[in-house]
């Protein structure tokens, strides 16, 4: 545990990173814990709200940008990562954090997730995973258990094994992969801070219960346990996931490589470029 971060969390005012909007979330929603931990991490890192950009798609969880005092972009469903990529690539001076839910990130947004892992642009991606589509009133998401019959859209269950976000991230080449729990505030704040500080694409799956459509997730509290030890060996990380019950928290994998930044070099002016079209006669 990074004790410097831990310490500062208690010293700096994380309230300054919250906006005065009242969240639309249900009382007891796990996302409140994420908002708290996130603002704590921001405070701990001594960031300035105006240099922070929170980018999200659509979903209950994706409402989080407006609840912070940072710049925010609440885009369309599933496209948080392309928005964040365009922003971080063209404004490397900013701290860019993409957020959203399991539906937004792994269902409609799954392709961007896979390619963002490979691309390794400098941004943190925090997914509030509640194994359900909260916003649309409770359908199965990619991480929903195959036999969950709580949705009218899949009354017999999905019949499909839940997606393993950490395995996908690892297979797709993400250099920083972690899991945390919305109700473990200190660990969560620490991991978020680490993800933000990481230079490159840092993915955190945050287990964040949906009290309304998955009330049984209150039981996650008992099932979650710390356990991942950061490694930079992909094979070891795959092996760690082989024995994983889905509730192990911590940083699974951390293997820094240069982050993606397409070339830029202000070398010529437009007149010079235009000259190339001229006919030499």
């Amino acid at each position, binding site marked *: 545990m990074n004790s410097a971060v831990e310490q500062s969390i208690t010293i700096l005012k994380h309230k300054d990173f919250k906006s005065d*909007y009242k969240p639309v979330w249900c009382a007891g929603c796990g996302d409140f814990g994420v908002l708290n931990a996130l603002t704590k991490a921001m405070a701990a890192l001594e960031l*300035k*709200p*105006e*240099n*922070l*950009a*929170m*980018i999200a798609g*659509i979903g209950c969880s994706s409402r989080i*940008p*407006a609840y912070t*005092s*940072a*710049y*925010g*972009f*609440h*885009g*369309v469903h*599933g*496209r948080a*990562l*392309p*928005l*964040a*990529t*365009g*922003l*971080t*690539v*063209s*404004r490397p*001076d*900013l701290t860019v954090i993409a957020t959203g839910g399991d539906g937004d990130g792994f269902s409609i947004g799954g*392709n*961007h997730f*896979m*390619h963002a892992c490979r691309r390794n642009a400098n941004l943190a991606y925090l997914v509030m995973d509640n194994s359900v589509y909260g916003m649309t009133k409770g359908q199965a998401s990619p991480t929903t258990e195959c036999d969950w019959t709580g949705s009218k859209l899949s009354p017999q269950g999905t019949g499909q094994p839940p997606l393993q976000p950490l395995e996908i991230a690892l297979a797709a080449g993400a250099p920083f992969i972690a899991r945390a729990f919305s109700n473990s505030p200190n660990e969560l704040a620490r991991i978020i801070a680490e993800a933000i500080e990481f230079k490159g694409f840092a993915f955190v799956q945050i287990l964040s219960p949906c009290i309304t459509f998955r009330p049984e997730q209150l039981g996650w509290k008992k099932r979650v346990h710390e356990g991942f030890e950061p490694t930079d060996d992909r094979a070891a990380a795959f092996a760690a996931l082989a024995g994983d019950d889905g509730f192990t928290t911590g940083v699974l994998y951390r293997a820094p490589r240069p982050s993606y*930044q*397409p*070339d*830029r*070099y*202000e*070398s*010529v*002016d*437009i007149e010079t*470029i*235009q000259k190339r*079209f*001229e*006919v*030499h*006669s």
Partner: protein
Amino acid sequence: MNDTPDTTTDLSLALIGSGGAGVMTAGQTLLDAAATSGYYGLMTRATGPQIRGGEAAAILRLSSRPVECQDDRLDLLLAIDWNKAERFADELILDGDSLVIADPGQGEVPAWVRDSGAHLLEVPFDRLTREVRGARANTIAVGLVGRMIGLEEADVDRTVRRILENKGAKLIDAALASLKVGYTTAGDLPHPSRLGGRSSRPEPRWLITGNEAAGLGAVRGGVRFCAAYPITPSTEIQEWLAAHLPELGGSLVQAEDELASINMCLGASFGGAPSMTATSGPGFSLMVEALGLATQAEIPVVVVDVMRGGPSTGIPTRSEQSDLNIAVHGAHGDAPRLVLAPNSIGDCVTTTQWAVHLAEALQCPAVVLSDQRLGQARAAIAPPPVRDWQARRKLATEVIDDYRRFADTEDGISPMALPGTAGGQYTATGLSHMESARPSASGTDHQRQLDKRRHKLERFDFGDDWADIDGDGELVVLTWGSTTQPAREAIARMRSRGHAIRLISIRLLSPLDADTLTEALGSGRRLLVVEQSHGGQFHRYIRSHIELPADTRLLARPGPLNIGPGEIVAAIEEMTREEAA
């Protein structure tokens, strides 16, 4: 046809041959050489369905005056071979005044050529090629045609040297020797018409494709970020930007798909970088959700749609003007946006530059409707005019109390705070919202922001560039985009026959200023609407905004063959004939 060379100011020719014969290179060399000699010109490409190496045609028009469309017929057709040449029968129109050059060893002359009445000259390319070490038939053809149409040998030689610059002396020598064979062979042949009439002090001239021109227009306007996913026929814009953006301190990202590319642009633009992507129909279809977001969240972005035959995958390599509907209407909800169209290759620079300027000034998406006809043609043109349109976004730069991102200002344009500006923090959103950007489902807020977004487009002074208007007369030809040049030429022909005709080519398709357009149409006039779409999309669109003259005709047909001047002349003639009757 006689054997003493005529002088003409305008010459159309085509080179055809099967894959690997190099007719495209030959065509481009001729175009470049003609440009070096001081002519204007245009080259378009036609190919068969094979991915690579199928039959190909390079179609050229060279002239002493600016030309930006092909003629209706060919003066000269040179076939290196006849392999699958009949595929081009609809496109390469010959008549009794045409000259056809072919190798007698390459088999029978196709029926469409034989039946055209064109004069046939036999040149044994294959044999000639074997006479010089390393010679290529296509280069011999360049020499032959160059000489026949009266280009200076020195200009042709110089052009070939420049093109082969980095290929080594051996290749250059072989090429020059090939050219010489061509020159010599040409000397023995009748020259029906030679190019002439260029001014002795040639004006400056550019060699450029429409797609390169759009790229240039973009960076002229200030674009510094592009995210792109390849698609024919727009890829060359992306490639041009990939080469040039980094030189200008910008960057290009190759995205995983078009959903990503357009959203990356929105992300970059949110951060302050003027952003653009280029695509074609299928990719554009995938972008409409994000364009709606750009409207609602007031994020500037430019999309160049290089149109091709549709619907669906359609005819990827050929032109059509059938994306107008989706460009204007492709978004759920009331989502007005800018739609612009260049009307010539050079205008691809100007209109794209304007689009960037307008998108940034009005904080909204702009669609530029180019097409394959403009985008993939290469032309020798007069340098496009210098315009001072720049990306100048109205920004909120000071630390402000109570910052309202979507403040309902007089002109409807609200100062935008960029990340990094202290006190300007807000959350851009696709939800209906208040002036503060706070989400709202209230009718008052919804209406107010819809009004504001309409007003900013309606109240803006777009000036005179909304259309190119030319001439006057009782008949008006109304068109847009790439059909403008053939319309212009058709009108010139009719004018030379004494008819007074006005041309209106609309550059700014949306918002469409009904009053200004109605005024330009004048009253009591008859109207011919010209467009390259099956459904008459442009006609319907105009009709949805203004009352059209009682006598309005529509010349609308789909691709892949381009509408030529002759076709428009025929339509005008029909209207004038009817009037006379």
